[in-house]
C-alpha cells in the first residue's frame, strides 16, 4: 500500500488537463518529448516541465535511450490510484446488491409472519 504523500503527489499531478492529456497519449505507447509536445500550443520546455511533474509522482518513467529518452507510462501506479477509490466502492456495491436481493425476495407475495 502506498503512503498518503504518494497519493497526494499523484492526484496533484493529474489535476492538470495538459498532464492528463499526456497520460492519455502515453496509454497508447511510449513517446518522446517532441511527440508529446505536438498537440499542444505550448513550448517544448513547458511540456518538459509537465513530464517532470508526472515523473516525480511516479506516473511515468524515462528510459536512458541516449538522445530519444522516450517517456513511458507506469500502469501499475495508475491502477493503485483507481484501486484507492474502487475498493471503497466495491464494498458498497456488494452491500446494495445484497439489499436488492432482499427487496426482490420480499416483493414476492406472502403472509406477514408476525
Amino acid at each position, binding site marked *: 500500500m502506498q503512503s498518503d504523500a504518494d497519493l497526494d503527489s499523484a492526484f496533484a499531478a493529474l489535476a492538470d488537463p495538459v498532464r492528463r492529456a499526456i497520460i492519455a497519449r502515453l496509454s497508447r505507447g511510449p513517446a518522446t518529448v517532441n511527440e508529446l509536445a505536438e498537440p499542444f500550443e505550448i513550448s517544448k520546455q513547458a511540456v518538459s516541465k509537465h513530464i517532470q511533474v508526472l515523473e516525480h509522482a511516479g506516473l511515468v518513467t524515462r528510459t536512458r535511450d541516449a538522445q530519444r529518452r522516450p517517456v513511458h507510462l507506469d500502469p501499475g501506479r495508475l491502477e493503485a490510484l483507481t484501486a484507492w477509490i474502487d475498493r471503497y466502492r466495491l464494498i458498497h456495491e456488494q452491500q446494495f446488491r445484497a*439489499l436488492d436481493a432482499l427487496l426482490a425476495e420480499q416483493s414476492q407475495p406472502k403472509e406477514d409472519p408476525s
Partner: protein
Amino acid sequence: MTNALVITAPEGTPWIEFTREFDAPVGALFNAHRDPDLVRRWLGPNGYEMAIDHYDFVSGGGYRYVHHAPDGGEYAFHGMFHTVREGEFAIQTFEFEGAPDQVAIEYLWFEDLGPGRSRLRGKSIGPSVESRDAMVASGMEKGMREGYERLEALCA
C-alpha cells in the same frame, strides 16, 4: 440490471455522498433499514456475519452491532438514531469502536420514485478531512482483503 451506485468524496471535505436506486417501493427500502432481521442480511461486507446487540430504528433509539470476518476479525459499530421519519428520512451517528471518538453523522433520504421504484441518498460527515480519508482507506483495506480471499478460493 444492477442499478448504478454514485459515490462522491470531494477532495478537502469531510464527507462522502452516495446515491443508489432500487427496484422496490420506498416502504420496503425503509423497512430493510428498520427491521434488524433484515438489516443483518445486507449491511456490511460480503461474507461477514453480522451480530446485532440492539437496534432500535426510531427517533432517540440506538444500535450496536459486530461484523465477524471470515478470518475471525471482529469490527464493532455503535451509534444513535437522532431522527427517524417513516419512509422518508433518518439521521444517525456512526462510530467504529476501533477508532473511538471519530463519530460520523449520517443522513439517509428515502425517496419514492413511483410504483416499485425508490432512491436512497446518503451523506456521511466525519469530524475531519483526515478521518473521512481514513474511512475511505479502511474500506480499501477491507476490499483488498476480500479480493485476496476470492483469489485464494479460485486458487484452492
